[in-house]
């Protein structure tokens, strides 16, 4: 399934040096000292501050909804029948089956075709038999796996790092401070700037936090033309009773990241109330769509072509969104998972 076209900000407008190559702490600042752009939809104003000052833009009784999914070292080497090595990046993991990208182990990690019926060895205890390509997303390979693979991923894997992160940044930099159960192929990065100290001070001022879980898949299939088609796949999410109740009670719900939006909107009924739910979601959110459960959004800045922007259009009209992205480039905001942040109110 393809989503509608995205905001047409030309990718070439984004200077390479604005792609954050290292986390804030390795740039010599605290994680909560990245920059924050505040986009106020009501007044149509854009202001610029630092992430740890976010409380000045929040109100007592605001509810932050965070995605507690922990990042996996999801790039896992596997040995092919001919002895060569491929890197598997599981996008969707179900009991007994992975839908995984198969790429070269070294940069630029180009896709490697597998042979249906071939057996890949992941560890002494774990094999993966190639069933074939996934029909709707042909760059993903359906693999029958002999174990759930969590131990293998944690033992053998590396975080998925894109070309703008040249150094082998360790896995702990890819975790949010509230990360719990593991399962995300890539960091749900919108919450990365939160420190525990900041969350505690927000809590002291009456801003509560609710936790949901959504295990993220892959943001790229290592093929620009294919990525531009915005293939949708399912992601596992869990909204438990306390989170649903908190969302239904809160006067203003601020989703930390688009993953929190997708989980809550999937769990929201037509009446706008969120029900507890554990399920797969492949909900696509785009401009013009009514957002039922979420009132505001904290998000990072992502590639102008990313489908991420589609979702933002559901919150912000195109002129204001364009102005925000223009200001971000002009003021040299840093992009991607280790970059700066936006609050859309």
């Amino acid at each position, binding site marked *: 399934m393809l989503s509608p076209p995205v905001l047409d900000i030309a990718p070439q407008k984004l200077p390479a040096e604005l792609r954050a190559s290292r986390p804030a702490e390795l740039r010599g600042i605290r994680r909560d000292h990245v920059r924050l752009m505040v986009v106020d939809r009501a007044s149509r104003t854009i202001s610029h501050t630092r992430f740890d000052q976010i409380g000045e833009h929040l109100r007592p009784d605001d509810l932050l909804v965070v995605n507690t999914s922990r990042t996996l070292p999801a790039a896992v080497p596997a040995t092919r029948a001919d002895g060569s090595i491929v890197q598997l990046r599981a996008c969707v993991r179900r009991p007994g089956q992975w839908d995984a990208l198969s790429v070269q182990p070294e940069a630029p990690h180009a896709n490697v075709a597998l042979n249906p019926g071939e057996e890949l060895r992941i560890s002494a205890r774990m094999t993966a038999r190639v069933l074939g390509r996934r029909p709707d997303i042909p760059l993903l390979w359906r693999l029958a796996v002999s174990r759930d693979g969590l131990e293998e991923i*944690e033992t053998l894997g590396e975080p998925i790092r894109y070309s703008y992160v040249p150094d082998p940044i360790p896995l*702990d930099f890819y975790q949010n401070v*509230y990360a*719990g159960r593991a399962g995300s192929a890539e960091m749900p990065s919108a919450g990365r700037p939160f420190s525990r100290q900041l969350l505690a001070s927000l809590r002291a001022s009456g801003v509560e936090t609710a936790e949901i879980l959504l295990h993220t898949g892959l943001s790229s299939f290592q093929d620009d033309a294919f990525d531009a088609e915005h293939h949708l796949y399912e992601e596992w999410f869990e909204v438990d009773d306390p989170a649903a109740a908190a969302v239904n009670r809160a006067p203003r719900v601020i989703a930390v990241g688009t993953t929190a939006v997708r989980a809550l909107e999937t769990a929201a009924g037509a009446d706008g109330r969120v029900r507890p739910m554990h399920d797969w979601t492949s909900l696509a959110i785009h401009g013009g769509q009514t957002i039922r459960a979420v009132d505001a959004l904290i998000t990072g800045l992502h590639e102008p072509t990313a489908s991420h922007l589609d979702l933002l259009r559901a919150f912000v009209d195109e002129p204001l969104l364009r102005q925000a992205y223009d200001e971000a480039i002009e003021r040299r905001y840093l992009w991607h998972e280790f970059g700066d942040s936006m609050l859309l109110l």
Partner: protein
Amino acid sequence: MTTNGKLTGRVALITGASRGLGRAMALAFAREGADLVLCARGEDELKQVAAEARERGSNVLTVAADMALTRDVERLVVLALERFDRVDILVNNASQLGPTPLPYLIDYPPHVFSDVMKVNVMAPFHLIWSLLGGMIQRRDGVIINVSSDVAVNGYPGWGAYSVSKAALDGLTRTWATELTGTGVKIYAVDPTDMNTDMHRAAVPEDDPASLADPADIAEAFVALATGVVDPALGRLEATQLLKHAEPAGA
């Protein structure tokens, strides 16, 4: 033992759980109904302790892991949360003594010094760092770091171990100030000299009869974990805790 069920529904993670104090704590926590994540390097001994804990009614996850390896610490956290979704009680008990007989610090090999610090300081730091977020969110959690007399007193030969335990006390002290009011408790507990493999390796000339039984000392940790004693956060002595806890035996 007559006390039972004080830790029912709680999940406790204990490192270095295959022998000595770690094993004794695992069995005492199991008796109180806790679910357990037990970690040590040696899988066979660990499975033995797990079997004994299960006989006491515990759900037990064992993870063979080396606390000197960052990756193993992360794997331990991931498998624990996958199985139980949370950890309520974390006991950083795994320790490395270094070479025995204990060389003087003036002769200590730098690489071995670093290894001791990895196991005794970095691994507890990393485990606490990884599990603290959930504890703060739930406003509930008990972290106990196993310290030592040598953290505060200097003795010849105890160099690396002594420095590492002083560092662990320092971590505990700072975190105690930062965690006040969060509902998460953190302690460093000096268990006293016990009749364990580690103590025998360090001080072979000590008379075992003069040393405390780890099973008795484990009750001090039970008292802290259950909240039967509720002292100010920071450094504590097990023998003092036992005086304040209600008698465990009948």
